């Protein structure tokens, strides 16, 4: 189990992390989700030992590793831009972690070669061992980076926006494949991303971060259905936010009921097809605030200027500090 207690980190006068507490169980796949500047990468690097915290501890299985240099923590780190050694072949890259070991931990050259081949097979890059990174595609390079990190049999796998530099299609494929690999190898993984779709799809639990603080920790379902703060509510999934007397009302575009006596009325400004629904954009009668609604295509396409009455479901109210009021608005 990996634990983080009271981690605080400052860069000059800028506070990147404020007292972070987190527990990660073995074999969990955790996503650190947040916008840029939220501190998620800093936290990841502190866990790896690539940054030092100002206060707090990092515990691997109960033992504080804060004083342990990165080279001795046995964490596998996958960088956003791969950081492959350009002057070495793919196989040499993968075997690097094994080739720098000394003394008893060192294995024979043959063993290293076999292990590298095994890992390349695992990441489906069999036969490419003699190539140089410059000759591979982005997706292939990322898989080499992964194989290289796995070669040292890490107790923890850390990934810093690993798919950020790739095309959408490649990203989707690799996502799925990473999840399968994680399960098959029984790894413990922490994954940093700003893409909430990615986080919700892959993670066992999601840690939503903003401005150096944890906003909420929960399963993807919990995060989506029960956001605890206004930030989580509008960062994860699509959200309409309406100012009201009691605070801010949040509801999802698809969480509406079209009823004649609905509490809200929208004047249609724009309509287009979005997957299996009509996406309606418009302003609320009265307050003039902008909302987006999803209406099933079983209904006929709404016309411009038409008024639609509806009632939001599962709406959440947040006060001025982003904390929730109780109760649904009906």
């Amino acid at each position, binding site marked *: 189990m990996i634990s983080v207690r009271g981690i605080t980190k400052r860069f000059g006068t800028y506070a990147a992390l404020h007292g972070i507490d987190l527990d990660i169980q073995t074999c969990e796949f955790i996503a650190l989700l947040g916008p840029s500047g939220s501190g998620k990468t800093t936290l990841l690097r502190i866990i790896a030992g690539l940054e030092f915290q100002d206060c707090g501890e990092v515990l691997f299985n109960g033992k504080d590793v804060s004083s342990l240099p990165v*080279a001795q923590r046995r964490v596998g780190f996958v960088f956003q831009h791969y950081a492959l050694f350009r002057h070495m072949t793919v196989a040499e890259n993968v075997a690097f972690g094994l080739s720098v070991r000394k003394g008893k931990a060192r294995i024979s050259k043959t063993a290293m070669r076999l292990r590298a081949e095994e890992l390349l097979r695992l990441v489906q890059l069999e036969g490419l061992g003699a190539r140089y990174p410059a000759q591979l595609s982005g997706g292939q390079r990322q898989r080499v980076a992964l194989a290289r990190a796995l070669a040292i049999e890490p107790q923890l796998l850390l990934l810093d926006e690993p798919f950020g530099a790739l095309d959408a299609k490649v990203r989707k494929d690799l996502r799925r494949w990473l999840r399968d690999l994680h399960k098959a190898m029984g790894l413990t993984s922490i994954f940093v991303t700003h893409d909430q779709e990615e986080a919700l799809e892959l993670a066992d639990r999601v840690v939503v971060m903003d401005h150096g603080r944890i906003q909420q920790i929960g399963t993807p379902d919990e995060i989506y259905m029960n956001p605890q703060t206004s930030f989580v509510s509008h960062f994860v999934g699509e959200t309409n936010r309406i100012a009201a007397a009691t605070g801010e009302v949040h509801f999802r575009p698809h969480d509406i009921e079209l009823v004649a006596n609905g509490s809200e009325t929208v004047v249609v400004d724009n309509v287009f097809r979005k997957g299996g629904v009509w996406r309606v954009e418009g302003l609320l009668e009265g307050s003039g605030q902008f909302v987006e609604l999803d209406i099933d295509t079983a209904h006929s396409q709404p016309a411009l200027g038409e008024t639609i009455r509806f009632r939001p479901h599962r709406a959440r109210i947040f006060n001025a500090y982003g904390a929730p009021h109780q109760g649904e608005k009906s």
Partner: protein
Amino acid sequence: MHAITPRAARWRQPSVLPGFGLSFGFTLAWLTLIVLIPLATIFLKAAGMGWQEFLAVAFSPRAMAAYRLSFGTAAMAGLVNAVFGLLVAWVLVRYEFPGKKVVSALVDLPFALPTAVAGIALTALYSPNGWIGQYLEPIGIKVAFTPIGITVALVFIGLPFVVRSVEPVLEDLGKEVEEAAATLGATRWQTFLLVILPTIGPALLTGFALAFARGVGEYGSVIFISGNMPGRTEIAPLLIVTQLEQYAYAGATAIAAVMMLASFLVLLLINLIQATSRLRMVP
């Protein structure tokens, strides 16, 4: 002046911008006049000498001694600069210390300082009663008027080539690759040896080759400190000047031709290094 060119002249792609004829024509003319024709004269004259005479003069014992001296000291100085130039580049790129900007600017001094000034300054320092020479004399190390002095002068001349070749590559290296090596368990020394050094290798080699090429042809900074004794401390460029002063044009030309050939070979080598490294390194 728009690019409506007759078909025959369309050896280049037509373009929107004007002025190609003028700029290209002038460039070619100036280049030919100032560079190509004068340089060609060497080879024409050398060719006009006939094989026998050329070999006799270009490889006479005195000339051979001069080549050995010029190439030898240039290589030695290049090596010294490769090691210390790397050190200087490393310190300038990686570390902070007071006065770093001044030091960085000073590295270009050999580029900016006239060679004759460098020559007399170094001689003043290393002659037997010079600032440094006075301490080395008693312990038997003679610098001025020996090949060692020539090497010292060439170290001065060649330093910026190595430092400025290596610096950009070091800067480019970025910390991610070193961090990756660290996460995989490498010590700092292992990271330097296995990851950093191979990456800057081509740049280091290029810097060495540039310093070497410059050192072989260097004149002003060397002739004051070298003593200029034929067969012992006479560098090849000086031999050319001596031949000229005796109106032995053939001799001067022959030696010049040999030196130019060597320079071209080094240039070729540099281009080769850069080409092969680019093939493997471009991400």
